[in-house]
């Protein structure tokens, strides 16, 4: 497949040409039969300015009921305006067996001005030749007998041409397609960037873990970590419980209550309070039960004993 316009066969078309049977994509060279030309010396700097006024240059020259497009370019000091009817060109090509999708690019003979300085035959009767910087259609009989005749080839292909495909058979115009594709691509880009940023956030937390692992290499193994965690969890829980119990028992000493004996080991504790009278011991018992001690006993009238597991 040829991707470069210049590598494709350049086919010079004309009104009464025979039907074509093409097997590949070709570029088309259109003779003046298919366009109207105007050349003017205007004080314009840019092509877009010239394109804006192109329609006005052809006032009264074109058929009213046809839709025209315009090609504009600068040739030496003059601006060249070419008006063409793309629908008419497409219909003509179709009638000659050239499908729209078989057309690479369309060129106007005027664009290859210098290539036509030596005449090129256009069918059996006519020829194309540049006269006074304009490519014109002349009868072959008007050529001098000794004039050299050249054949058109790829070297005639101008740098820029028209693309025909998007105007026909397509549900979307090229402009619409480009606009939609741009919009969707921008969204796609936003999604990709967002996705990348989500990935990046996770990397931040992983970096924190790596930093901790570097600082505490002994915690790298999950089993070691689990075992260390369990060991310290148990110590933390039991030691806090011991301290809580001691603080609670100490908080139960009020007027008339004295600690007679206290004992705590790793699994159990026992405390014996000596109260001043039976009333105080009763109150102490109530307080102990309120604080969640279940095994509260009264030994004689004034001694209260609490003995429980941690």
């Amino acid at each position, binding site marked *: 497949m040829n991707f470069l316009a210049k590598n494709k066969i350049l086919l010079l078309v004309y009104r009464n040409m025979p039907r074509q049977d093409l097997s590949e994509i070709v570029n088309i060279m259109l003779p003046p039969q298919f366009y109207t030309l105007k050349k003017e010396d205007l004080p314009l700097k840019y092509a877009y300015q010239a394109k804006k006024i192109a329609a006005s240059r052809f006032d009264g020259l074109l058929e009213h009921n046809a839709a025209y497009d315009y090609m504009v370019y600068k040739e030496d000091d003059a601006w060249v305006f070419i008006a063409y009817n793309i629908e008419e060109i497409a219909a003509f090509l179709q009638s000659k067996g050239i499908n729209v999708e078989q057309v690479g690019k369309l060129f106007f003979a005027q664009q290859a001005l210098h290539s036509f300085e030596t005449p090129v035959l256009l069918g059996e009767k006519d020829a194309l030749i540049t006269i006074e910087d304009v490519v014109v259609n002349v009868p072959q009989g008007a050529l001098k007998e000794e004039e050299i005749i050249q054949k058109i080839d790829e070297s005639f292909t101008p740098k820029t041409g028209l693309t025909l495909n998007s105007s026909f058979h397509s549900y*979307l115009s090229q402009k619409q397609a480009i606009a939609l594709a741009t919009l969707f691509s921008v969204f796609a880009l936003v999604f990709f960037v967002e996705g990348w940023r*989500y*990935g990046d956030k*996770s990397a931040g*937390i992983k970096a924190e873990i790596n930093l901790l692992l570097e600082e*505490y290499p002994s915690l790298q193994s999950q089993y070691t970590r689990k075992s260390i965690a369990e060991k*310290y969890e148990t110590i933390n829980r039991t030691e806090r419980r*011991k301290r809580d119990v001691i603080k609670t028992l100490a908080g139960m000493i009020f007027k008339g209550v004295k600690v007679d004996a*206290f004992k705590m*080991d790793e699994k159990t504790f026992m405390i014996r309070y000596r109260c001043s009278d039976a009333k105080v011991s009763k109150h102490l018992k109530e307080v102990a039960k309120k604080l969640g001690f279940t095994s509260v006993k009264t030994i004689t009238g004034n001694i209260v004993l609490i003995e429980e597991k941690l």
Partner: protein
Amino acid sequence: MIWKRYQNELIVLFSIVLLLSGLLYKNKQNADSVENRTVTKSAVREFKQIIAHKKQWADKSIAKKLDKLKSVVPASKLTWHKKAKTLNAQFKGLNSQELNKVVTTILNLAIQIQGLEVKENHSSYDVEFKCKW
């Protein structure tokens, strides 16, 4: 050559495919990220907790801190046996103020209490204390 006929539609279709790929990629990254963050955050929390516990319960300076207990009561009332990572201390004839100080100091140290015994003896107190770290 059919592709050329519908090349505009194909361009748009391609950009839609790109858009959907972007959307899927973003959603997948988001889901992965949420999962990763949950797992990793819990791992970080676990790590920090282990480190905090280790700092508290395996404090290398605890042996020195434990010596504070000696200063709480006069040396005459104290019998002190510190060996390797264990302590066996006996306090005799403590008044209630000294007893409070001893118990408070013990409670504020990050040591593992193996045994604590308080006995009243003629208005004074005898304390036996065993711990490890």
